[in-house]
């Protein structure tokens, strides 16, 4: 016999082994439930991670902008509105006041890892007969690349920006019929004009952005947009991305800027994720409950079937505690076995779905994140659920009167 295994273990294993059919069915049930949970949790985590990665490589975690000039309705002393038409201020490019001082202050903050100033404005890109309205972003590559991972999106050419270079999106290149090394003319609303060489093409994974965004050297943008020495935006990379909103509020309170965290600008996404997590929790709860009821039902039947065995064990000196543990362990083993099966099935489904589900552009829908911690947590939870579910049947078994049990 299994030497050194405790009596409770031997009993639990043998009882489960003898009731093979019952054991098989309930473990199968638990396996399916656990697989659903593993699959859902991993896919959700993957989608979230994928989105966050996309957002955070294409956008600063915190953007500092000139304070918003909010237009207010004109009021005539009392509450009477004199002119209800509210107009946004004109589209002229406004630099952040004393941006260098602010940038230095940001660099000194312990929570901030990288700081990059940039200048954005609109202009017309012209090549031959074709022209397109674009957004010109002037950057200093050394600092900007630490805040926005532009280099991840380059699909052709070199990320090189002298004052006569420009990076454009793949869609804009197609619209203008331009390719690497071609020259295009960029003309601003103010009338400034530059001829720039295309040194790289990027694909941000979004057609609108690929058509509209262009990158030039900061100095070039400043001269084009007529704001020499100015910047319209300071981007920050911080240590803990989930702290972004708090840090943004802090920065706003002590600097004359508007600070937008990536959490705020993607609020919709987070609302959706929150709703999805809530649904996920509910599903887990109900799967857990049905697993628990299933285990309890199987063990209740087992206690009735084995009442004679229990009586004999008690007659041979087994304590109530040993009988209790014998059945609790069976519940725990069922939960654990089901969680192993479920983890394998869930992971297999995940790998399969990962290979099948593709985004419109053919890239993966979600990264395959198979965290060991998910399986450990699932196994632990399923085992505990099994033990908890076994409580009622186990108590019943431990309270069996041996005389009644043996008489059967």
């Amino acid at each position: 016999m299994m030497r050194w295994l405790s009596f409770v273990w031997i009993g639990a294993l043998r009882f489960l082994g003898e009731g093979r059919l019952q054991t098989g069915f309930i473990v199968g049930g638990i396996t399916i439930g656990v697989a659903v949970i593993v699959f859902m949790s991993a896919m959700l985590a993957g989608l979230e991670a994928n989105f966050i990665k996309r957002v955070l490589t294409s956008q600063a975690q915190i953007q500092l902008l000139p304070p918003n000039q909010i237009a207010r309705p004109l009021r005539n002393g009392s509450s009477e509105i004199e002119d209800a038409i509210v107009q946004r201020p004109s589209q002229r490019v406004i630099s952040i006041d004393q941006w260098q001082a602010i940038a230095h202050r940001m660099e000194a903050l312990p929570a901030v890892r990288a700081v990059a100033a940039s200048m954005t404005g609109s202009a017309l890109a012209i090549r031959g007969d074709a022209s397109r309205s674009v957004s010109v972003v002037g950057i200093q590559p050394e600092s900007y690349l630490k805040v926005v991972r532009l280099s991840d999106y380059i699909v052709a050419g070199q990320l090189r920006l002298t004052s006569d270079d420009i990076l454009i999106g793949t869609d804009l290149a197609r619209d203008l019929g331009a390719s690497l090394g071609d020259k295009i003319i960029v003309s601003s609303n103010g009338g400034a004009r530059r001829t720039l060489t295309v040194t790289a093409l990027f694909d941000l994974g979004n057609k609108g952005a690929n058509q509209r965004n262009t990158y030039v050297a900061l100095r070039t943008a400043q001269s084009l947009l007529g704001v020499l020495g100015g910047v319209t935006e300071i981007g920050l990379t911080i240590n803990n991305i989930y702290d972004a909103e708090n840090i943004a509020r802090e920065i706003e309170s002590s600097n004359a800027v508007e600070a937008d965290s990536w959490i705020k600008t993607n609020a919709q996404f987070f609302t959706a994720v929150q709703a999805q997590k809530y649904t996920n929790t509910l599903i887990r709860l109900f799967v857990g409950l049905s697993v628990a009821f299933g285990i309890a039902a199987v063990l209740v039947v087992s206690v009735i079937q084995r009442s004679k065995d229990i009586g004999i064990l008690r007659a041979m000196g087994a304590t109530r505690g040993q009988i209790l543990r014998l059945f609790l362990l069976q519940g725990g083993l069922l939960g654990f076995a089901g969680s192993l099966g479920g983890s394998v099935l869930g992971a297999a489904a995940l790998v399969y779905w990962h290979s099948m589900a593709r985004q419109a552009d053919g890239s993966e829908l979600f990264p395959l994140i198979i965290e060991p911690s998910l399986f450990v947590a699932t196994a632990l939870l399923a085992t505990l659920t099994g033990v908890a579910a076994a409580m009622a049947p186990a108590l019943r078994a431990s309270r069996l009167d041996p005389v009644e049990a043996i008489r059967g």
Partner: protein
Amino acid sequence: MAEPILALKDVRKSYAVGLSTETEVLHGIDLELESGGFVALVGPSGSGKSTLLNIIGLLDRPTSGELAIAGRKTSELDDAQITHLRGHRIGFVFQSHLLISAFTALENVMMPMVVSRGHVTEAIEARGRHLLDRMGIAQFANNGALNMSGGQQQRVAVARALAMQPDLILADEPTGNLDSKSAEVVFTLMREENARSGTSFLIVTHNMDLARRCDRIITVVDGRIGGSPE
């Protein structure tokens, strides 16, 4: 006479019948068993033999009266102490074998020792095999408990009762379900064990031939000790 292994004094047992009525099944039993005895307990069906045996085996508690095992009064013991005393001092052989079907023959024999010790040891396994050998069924050690004849199963049950070297083995109609040849084998084995180890036996039986081959016969009639017919 040696020190009594078992002493009952005015033991009564009532069962609740319906909501408010009780019937008394044992009406004041006084009984002493000497250590090392081989005793038969006989009496008509329904006279209370099994009830008495269950009380002596600490599976059931008397409604009133005192039961002492090897000098220890059991009314003062709590449930855990009763369980311990039962596990170490008393062995059981039931009428219908009542082996645990999930275990092999050997495991059934080892089970009282494993329950007591908490886990399997080499010594426990060796003793299990030794006992099966003494019962002449060593070759069935790894059989499923139910894949044996009735007589073989009952021999496993006797081996199991002997496992803890108890002071007293209680057997409720151990040969009741066996053909006469198997019954003879099982009875003889028990008699040999009694002679060899000095373990006391108290055997309920309807077979008067077997009863007469015991050291002493106790008769129970209508819940009272009726005295030895001899």
